[in-house]
């Protein structure tokens, strides 16, 4: 039996190769979040000062919706040809599969954010007044918070009718504290009025709590059939 990390890396490499060849999820997410940005630009026409206060919310709403697009097809891919059943009967630990999937989604959504962030800066004439480097940990922690629960709930909603509809219904309520923390941290960095430390600590707590819960309970969900 191979070690935990070699299984994780093998699954991750397979997913990245698949995504690199098809680019389905990335293209869909990029275009989707571009549409969200453009629609927001048409809906609100803010001054530079106002936009600093609202962009934190807009950015994360766009990424949240775009992430759901990627998360929905994480497991759907494994249903074809009974790949998931193969995993289930194999001696490989289920958590290795989960970690690989979560890391894959994390890379995908982070790439999306890196590509979309400049667009927000252009459309909203943003100039960061607080410590800009703090946006990096906020983005990384926030993305992990969305992705770890998203991957888990996507696996859960596999067993339901209309599963694509189910994922946001399960994910959004549980993500509310993370979203509040991400938005508040981003806003306070952009405006430079408050310190974002409290929210960064909160995001770390959220990530630790839910990563533990997901890893601990994933086998139950994977074997539930």
């Amino acid at each position: 039996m191979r070690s935990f990390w070699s299984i994780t890396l093998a699954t991750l490499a397979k997913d990245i190769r698949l995504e690199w060849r098809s680019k389905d999820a990335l293209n869909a997410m990029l275009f989707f979040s571009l549409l969200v940005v453009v629609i927001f630009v048409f809906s609100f026409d803010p001054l530079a000062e106002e936009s600093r206060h609202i962009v934190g919310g807009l950015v994360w709403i766009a990424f949240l919706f775009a992430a759901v697009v990627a998360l929905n097809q994480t497991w759907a891919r494994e249903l074809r040809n009974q790949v998931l059943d193969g995993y289930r009967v194999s001696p490989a630990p289920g958590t290795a599969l989960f970690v690989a999937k979560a890391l894959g989604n994390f890379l995908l959504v982070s790439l999306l954010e890196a590509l979309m962030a400049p667009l927000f800066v252009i459309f909203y004439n943003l100039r960061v007044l607080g410590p800009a480097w703090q946006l990096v940990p906020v983005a990384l922690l926030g993305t992990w918070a969305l992705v770890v629960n998203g991957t888990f709930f996507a696996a859960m909603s596999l067993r339901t009718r209309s599963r694509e509809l189910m994922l946001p219904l399960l994910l959004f309520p549980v993500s509310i504290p993370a979203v509040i923390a991400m938005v508040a941290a981003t806003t306070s960095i952009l405006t430079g009025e408050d310190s974002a430390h409290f929210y960064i600590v909160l995001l770390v707590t959220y990530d630790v709590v839910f990563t533990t819960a997901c890893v601990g309970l994933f086998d139950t969900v994977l074997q539930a059939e």
Partner: protein
Amino acid sequence: MKKAFPILAVLTAFLLAYAFYQAMFVAPTDALQGDVYRIIFYHVPSAWTAFLLFFINFVASVHYLADAKPSTQRAAKWIAIAVGIVGVIIPYIPQVRGWLQTIGMYPSSAATTALMIPALYFVIGKLFRGQDVDVLAVTCAEVGVVFCTIVLITGPIWARPVWGIWWAPGDIRLTSTLVLWLIYVSYLVLRRFSDSAQTQKLAAVLAVFGALDVPLVYFSIWFFRTQHPQPVIGGGGSMDPRMLHVLLLNWMAFLCFGFLVCWSRFRLEKLRREVEEAEALESLSEHGGPVVQSSAKVPLGGGAR
């Protein structure tokens, strides 16, 4: 047991009527708010009942997940005891005590809440076995959502004349109640949309996630100050004893009512599962014969007789 149901129903109806009379005519009018404050007699008991039911749902869900394997069952038992012991000691540590005071809670009320976890855990384990634990979880979630909806409706009705606004965005109590409501609605949606044999397990997992979420919601809105009145019991708030008496009377009536609804919902759900099981067995014996019957997965079988 079945004979007790109509007796309790009559008793509850009488209690509700008496509590209504007390709330509307006997309790003194508030000096500042006037008669509009009387909605508290419905708002607060509903909130307490809803939170209690969600709490039971959480404990029952943990039970359901833990009972799957004997090893986790043992571990969960010790964890429940540990939570009780740690939860009783921690509120009395000076730093925690000071911090609890800032959110308007006495250490004793925090310790009692912590003690409820092992107490409920063992009571539920004694009274409900097998699939019954899951039936209890779904019953409590459904009735809890109804009570929580009452809280969320009566709150704004009161807030409009007193605060001048329907809803205070970012308020710690309002937001955490709303998020709790959202989580449990998504729990019910999951149960409705999922029709595999493992719905119970998935729902129990979601209930655990929801319970982990609640403290985080609370901290995420930490910096937004609350407009909500201080808690009436176990907190810094003060209330005329005559009003408090009526409030407790109303809570008793609401608890009886909630218990009654849960009871009949519990029986209904059990009957529904029995019918489903019987139908599944019947269709199996028609098509596959008795050989298949023994090995087939009957969707909601197990403990439901």
